[in-house]
C-alpha cells in the first residue's frame, strides 16, 4: 500500500515536471506570431507619363431611366481622379455620346465622309468600319445587345483624334455604362434565431424561397490616346446587388454602392495605388 502511494507520488511529480517544462519553454519563447500592418503598392496598368491631362468625355449609357448613368459616371470619375491621380482633370461639358453616335450613324448611312463633332472647327471624321455600312442603332438602350452597335463609335479614331486636338491631346476616358434593374428568385440561406424548450438561444441556418430585386452595373472603360485617337486600353466590369423585394432602395444609392466596388480598379489603371491590410508574421 505504502509502495503504491509512493509510486503514485513519483508519477505525479514527473507529470508536474513535464507540464512545468512545457509551460516554461512556451513562456521563454514568447509570442509566436505578430500582426503587422502592410501597404501593398500596386503599379498602374497604363503608362500615362505622356499625358498631363485627362478628359472624362462621356459614356454611352442605358438600362434604367432612374439614373443618368452618363452624367453620374462622369461626375464620379472626375472627382475621384482629382483627388487620387496626378493627372489634371479637364472640366468640360459631359458629351452625349448616344446622340453623337446616332448622328455619326446617320451621316455614315448617307454615304458622307463626316461625323458630327464638338470641335470648334466643325471638321468631319470618318467611321473606321464605314465600308461595311452602318448597323442600326437602337434609340433606347436596355441591355448589352442594344449597346453593341454603339461600340463602333470608339473605333472612330479620326473623331477621337479631333476631340484630342480640341483639348490639347489629353488622355481620353470614355466607354459604355449599363445600369439596369434586376430581379432574381430562389432559395436563400439565412440565419434564424430561436429558443429551445430549455429557453436556450440558438441560431440555425434556414433556406427560404425569396424574391429579390436590385441592379446590375456593367461599365466598360475605354482609354483613348488623344494624340492619335486610338484605344490604348479598355476594361470591363460587372457588379450586382440584390435586396429583399420589400426593401425600397433608391436606384441612385445602388448605383453608388456598385460603383464603390469598381472605382478602385478604374483608378488602378491610371495611377499607382497602395492597398492597406494586415498580415501575420510567424516565428
Amino acid at each position, binding site marked *: 500500500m505504502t509502495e503504491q502511494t509512493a509510486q503514485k507520488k513519483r508519477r505525479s511529480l514527473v507529470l508536474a515536471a513535464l507540464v512545468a517544462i512545457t509551460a516554461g519553454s512556451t513562456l521563454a519563447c514568447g509570442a509566436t506570431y505578430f500582426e503587422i500592418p502592410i501597404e501593398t503598392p500596386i503599379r498602374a496598368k497604363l503608362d500615362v507619363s505622356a499625358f498631363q491631362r485627362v478628359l472624362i468625355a462621356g459614356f454611352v449609357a442605358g438600362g434604367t431611366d432612374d439614373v443618368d448613368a452618363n452624367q453620374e459616371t462622369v461626375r464620379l470619375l472626375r472627382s475621384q481622379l482629382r483627388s487620387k491621380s496626378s493627372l489634371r482633370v479637364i472640366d468640360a461639358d459631359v458629351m452625349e455620346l448616344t446622340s453623337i453616335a446616332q448622328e455619326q450613324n446617320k451621316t455614315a448611312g448617307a454615304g458622307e465622309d463626316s461625323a458630327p463633332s464638338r470641335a470648334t472647327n466643325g471638321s468631319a471624321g470618318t467611321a473606321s468600319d464605314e465600308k461595311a455600312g452602318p448597323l442600326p442603332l437602337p434609340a433606347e438602350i436596355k441591355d448589352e445587345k442594344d449597346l453593341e452597335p454603339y461600340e463602333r463609335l470608339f473605333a472612330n479614331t479620326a473623331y477621337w483624334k479631333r476631340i484630342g486636338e480640341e483639348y490639347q491631346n489629353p488622355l481620353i476616358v470614355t466607354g459604355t455604362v449599363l445600369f439596369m434593374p434586376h430581379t432574381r428568385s430562389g432559395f436563400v440561406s439565412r440565419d434564424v434565431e430561436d429558443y429551445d424548450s430549455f429557453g436556450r438561444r440558438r441560431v440555425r441556418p434556414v433556406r427560404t424561397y425569396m424574391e429579390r430585386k436590385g441592379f446590375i452595373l456593367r461599365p466598360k472603360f475605354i482609354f483613348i490616346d488623344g494624340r492619335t485617337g486610338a484605344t490604348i486600353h479598355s476594361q*470591363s466590369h460587372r457588379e450586382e446587388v440584390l435586396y429583399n423585394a420589400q426593401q425600397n432602395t433608391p436606384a441612385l444609392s445602388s448605383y453608388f454602392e456598385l460603383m464603390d466596388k469598381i472605382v478602385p480598379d478604374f483608378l*488602378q489603371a491610371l495611377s499607382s495605388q497602395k492597398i492597406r491590410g494586415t498580415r*501575420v*508574421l*510567424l516565428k
Partner: protein
Amino acid sequence: MTFRTATCITLLTVAFATPLHADTRSDAVAQVDFGITVAQRGLWREAIYRWERAVEIDPTYAAAFNDLAVGYEHEGQLEKARQAYEKALALEPNNAQIRQNYDLFKEINDRTDGAKETP
C-alpha cells in the same frame, strides 16, 4: 525503477535527438526574430534580407517563408511573394495563419489582373 529509467530515456531522446537540426533552426530563428523586430520599425528591406538569410539557412522553415512573403508583398514584389507563400504552405499545409495570409494576398493579386483588358 523501470518507470524512472523509461522517463529518463524519453527525456534524453527528446533533448538530444536532433542537435544539428536544432542548431540550423536556431540560427534561422535568430534571423527571423531580427527580421520581425526591424519590420515592426518599418525597415522592410532589412527585414527581407534577414528572412532571405533564414530560408537559406533552413529551407524547411515555413514561418521564415511566410514572413519573407509578407515582406515581398509590402514591397510590391507580388510574384516573389506568391512563390514564398506557396513554399510556406507546401511545408506546412495545415497552418491556418499562413493560409489566411495567402488568401488575403491572392485577393490583391487577383485584383491586379482581374479586369478584362484589351489593347
